[in-house]
C-alpha cells in the first residue's frame, strides 16, 4: 500500500507509475450498475449501436475513478483534492488501457503537487486528459 508522499520525494517532471489494465465488459457493467448509470450505451453492444455508437462504451465517470485510483496508488489514500478531465474519445471495453500521470508543479507551502493525468488506449491515443491537485504528507 502506498504511504503519503513527502514534498522532498517529489520533483517536477516525475512520472507516476503507469497502470495498465484490461477493461472487461463485465467490469464496465459492474461499474454501470454500482455507479447508477445502467443504460444500454454502457451495458449492451446492440443497444449502444442503436444510439449510433460502435458498441458499448465505458462511462466517463469510470475513467475518472480509474485515474483517481492510479493517483492514490502513488500518493496515498485521500490525497486527491481536485481533478478536472476532458473526455476526448470513446473508451471501448474489452481492450487494454493505460493510466498515466506526471508532476507538473509543486507548492512547498501548501504541500501540494499539480499533475497531468491521462488515460490512453493500447495504441497510445489519449482518450481522457486532465489535471489534478494532490496533497502530500
Amino acid at each position, binding site marked *: *500500500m502506498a504511504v503519503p508522499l513527502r514534498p522532498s520525494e517529489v520533483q517536477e517532471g516525475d512520472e507516476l507509475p503507469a497502470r495498465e*489494465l484490461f477493461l472487461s465488459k463485465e*467490469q464496465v457493467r*459492474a*461499474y454501470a*450498475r*454500482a*455507479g*447508477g*448509470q445502467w443504460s444500454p450505451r454502457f451495458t449492451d453492444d446492440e443497444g449502444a449501436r442503436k444510439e449510433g455508437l460502435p458498441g458499448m462504451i465505458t462511462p*466517463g*465517470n*469510470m475513467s*475518472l*475513478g*480509474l485515474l*483517481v*485510483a492510479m493517483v*492514490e496508488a502513488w500518493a496515498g*489514500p*485521500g490525497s*486527491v*483534492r*481536485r*481533478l*478536472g*478531465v*476532458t*473526455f476526448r474519445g470513446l473508451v471501448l471495453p474489452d481492450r487494454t488501457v493505460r493510466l498515466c500521470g506526471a508532476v507538473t508543479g509543486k507548492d512547498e507551502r501548501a504541500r501540494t503537487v499539480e499533475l497531468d493525468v491521462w488515460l490512453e488506449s493500447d495504441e497510445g491515443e489519449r482518450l481522457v486528459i*486532465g489535471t489534478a491537485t494532490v496533497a502530500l504528507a
Partner: protein
Amino acid sequence: MPLDLDPSIIGREFDHTVYGPVEAEELVAFSRALGATRPEYIEPGAELVGHPTFPVRYKGRKFYPENLPATIDVRRGFDAGKDIQLGVPVRPGDMIDVRSTLHEVYEKTGRTGSMYFVVIRFTMTNQRGEMLAVIDNRFMHR
C-alpha cells in the same frame, strides 16, 4: 447561432434533492467495480469510506433548468468532462444533499459548426453539513 441567454439564470439553484441513507454495500460495490483493493474501500466496518469519486453517481432529479436557450438541443449531447473538488469521504448512513446550479453556458465554433457547452454545478454535502464534493459537469450539445 448566437445564444439568447438570460444572464440571471447563471448561478441560480434549480434543483435540490436529498438521497440516502447510503448503504455500506453500495460503497463496496462502487469501489470493487473500480478494482479497488484497499480495506477502507471494500471491507464493511467502522473504517469503511466511499471511493473518492463515489459522489459522481449523484445528480439532481431535474438535470437541467427549464429556461435554457432553445438553440441548445438538450436531447442530444454527451458528457464532455468534469471538474471535481473533493471534500470528506462518504460513509455508510450518510445522506447526500445535492444542490444544482447552472454554472456556465458557452459556445465554441469548430469545423462542424457550433457546439454549446452547458456546465451544471452539483454541490454535495452530508447531513453534518460537510462538503463531500463540488462537481462541475460539462455537457456538449450541437
